[in-house]
């Protein structure tokens, strides 16, 4: 691997990321499965870095998952998107940051399609007025939330209490990055670092002291596939694609997987569980899995957040070996407690996956 070669490509794909004043839009999957990640994003940007990140309760899904499951027409999803943009303008913002990669890709595609087919934009404008009585607007800057953390990576590093380093060996942690397919595969220029060697997560890992591991199936999809996951009969597709990735990364012995897509950390986590429970195979050390974390969770760890505040207990793959390597203090007894120490019991143990 020639690092300078990658640097050269990275330098070709820079994008403008405004420093402040964003209209924030949540992700359906992340809210459902990683609510603490979005909370951490807002806490870091607003409270630690003092940025203006505005959220309105009136925003909704972008409809992306329904659209990519082919259940709603293109015109529907575009009008929902126009509504989101209109809310942004209504609140006086022009920088739009979204938590979801499916949304991000869809916003990029929508803006591009409108640019190419002005008659379609006119139709959507009309739809929006008819259905919502809202004024059509477009964002000046469209940013994914990981772009913003990437932008602030050095400020975060400056506030960090620890690094992505194995304290027992002094070696940097070996980190695998997984970029959501819709981040830059459709529009390479819209992603930090492009489509082939995205830099958005690499930049964070480097800034926080870890070592990035490139493995052959890095660019491969996690296998979500929308309909390929939602329908039980199709899940073999989804599982097999994640399996392919793990088989490929196994020789590199990564300590951690970092992701920027809502579904990917869920799938890279849960499919390890399914592989372990149905075949006995595990990919971490001594029967453990490889933790697949969101970028906010990783940022939170280096900034000294409590792992259970970050929601790491909601991963099926145990994170304790990682926390031990990083010398993160945590109380095992508090892992599954509710607010104010409420006893919620604990998940049943797995048969195979530690």
């Amino acid at each position, binding site marked *: 691997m020639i690092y300078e070669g990658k640097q050269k490509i990275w330098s070709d794909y820079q994008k403008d990321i405004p420093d402040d004043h964003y209209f924030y839009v949540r992700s359906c999957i992340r809210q459902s499965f990683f609510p*603490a990640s979005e909370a951490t994003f807002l806490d870091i940007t607003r409270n630690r870095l003092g940025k203006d990140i505005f959220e309105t309760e009136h925003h909704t899904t972008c409809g992306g*998952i329904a659209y990519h499951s082919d259940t709603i*027409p293109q015109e*529907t999803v575009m009008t929902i998107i126009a509504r989101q943009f209109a809310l942004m303008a209504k609140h006086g913002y022009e920088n739009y940051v979204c938590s979801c990669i499916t949304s991000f890709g869809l916003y990029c595609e929508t803006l591009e399609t409108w640019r190419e087919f002005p008659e379609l934009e006119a139709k959507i404008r009309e739809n929006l007025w008819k259905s919502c009585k809202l004024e059509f607007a477009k964002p000046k800057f469209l940013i994914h939330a990981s772009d913003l953390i990437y932008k602030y990576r050095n400020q975060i590093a400056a506030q960090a209490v620890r690094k992505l380093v194995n304290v027992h060996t002094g070696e940097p942690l070996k980190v695998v990055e997984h970029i959501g397919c819709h981040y830059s595969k459709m529009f390479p220029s819209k992603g930090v670092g492009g*489509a082939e060697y995205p830099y958005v997560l690499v930049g964070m890992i480097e800034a926080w002291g870890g070592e990035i591991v490139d493995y052959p199936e890095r660019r491969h*999809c996690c*296998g979500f596939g929308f309909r390929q996951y939602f329908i039980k009969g199709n899940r073999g597709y989804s599982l097999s694609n994640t399996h392919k990735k793990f088989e490929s990364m196994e020789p590199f012995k990564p300590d951690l997987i970092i992701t920027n897509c809502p579904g990917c950390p869920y799938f890279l986590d849960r499919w390890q569980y399914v592989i372990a429970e149905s075949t006995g195979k595990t990919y971490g050390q001594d029967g453990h899995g490889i933790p697949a974390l969101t970028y906010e969770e990783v940022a939170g760890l280096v900034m000294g957040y409590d792992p259970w505040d970050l929601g790491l207990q909601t991963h099926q793959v145990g994170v304790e070996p990682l926390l031990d390597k990083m010398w993160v203090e945590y109380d095992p007894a508090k892992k599954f407690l509710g607010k104010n120490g409420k006893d919620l019991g604990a998940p049943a143990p797995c048969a195979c996956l530690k």
Partner: protein
Amino acid sequence: MGKLYDLLMQDYRLKEGLNACINCGTCTAICPAAEFYRYDPRRIVDIVQSQDDNEIEKLLKSDTIWYCGECMSCVTRCPRKNAAGLIIMSLRNLSIELGYFIESEKGRQQFLLTKDLCSNVLDYGYCVYPRRFDYAGHPEAGRVWEWEEKHLDDVFERLGGNLDGKGPGAMRRIPQEDRDQLKAIFDITGATSRMEKVQAAGEKKAAELGMTMEEFTQMVYTTSDPKHLNH
């Protein structure tokens, strides 16, 4: 030029996604579906650009067009700037419009997907809503989800969420007025009539097969003929 091809060409995704294919196979080489299904996206693009209505009709009624996961990995690589993934989306759209989707096992799954995802959007304003994500139907969500499901309110409270709460926050209750707007968007952009069409096709198919809706739903959710896979 055929009638079905003309219908396809009205779709902006096809206008964007179809240029002259040179059958180089770049899309298939890296397609997640091509490895695990009997699927070759290159063939799909080739058939569509042939403008052969008979072949296109076969496609629209087949399982083949439902194998793609819409990851769009093909878009990055095509040397002719085709987007196989977008072409698939247009084909699926037309297959649903013409009611052909119900003919194939994989296409029929739209019945369930449309019902679940659209009602999530209209009822809650989200595509995915955790109270409708049950461990029984999702055993792969793990023991940890089994636990979360039991304590959903407490878990959300612990993790800084706002499940069904007022104001902003993760999984807040989206105000009725906003959901009304989503419904209005559905109504004027064809999503509502799409939902009705898909529902009716499902009911008709269930009756044809002599199944109750519950049986039909269960079948659609779980079955997967081995013919889809490679051996």
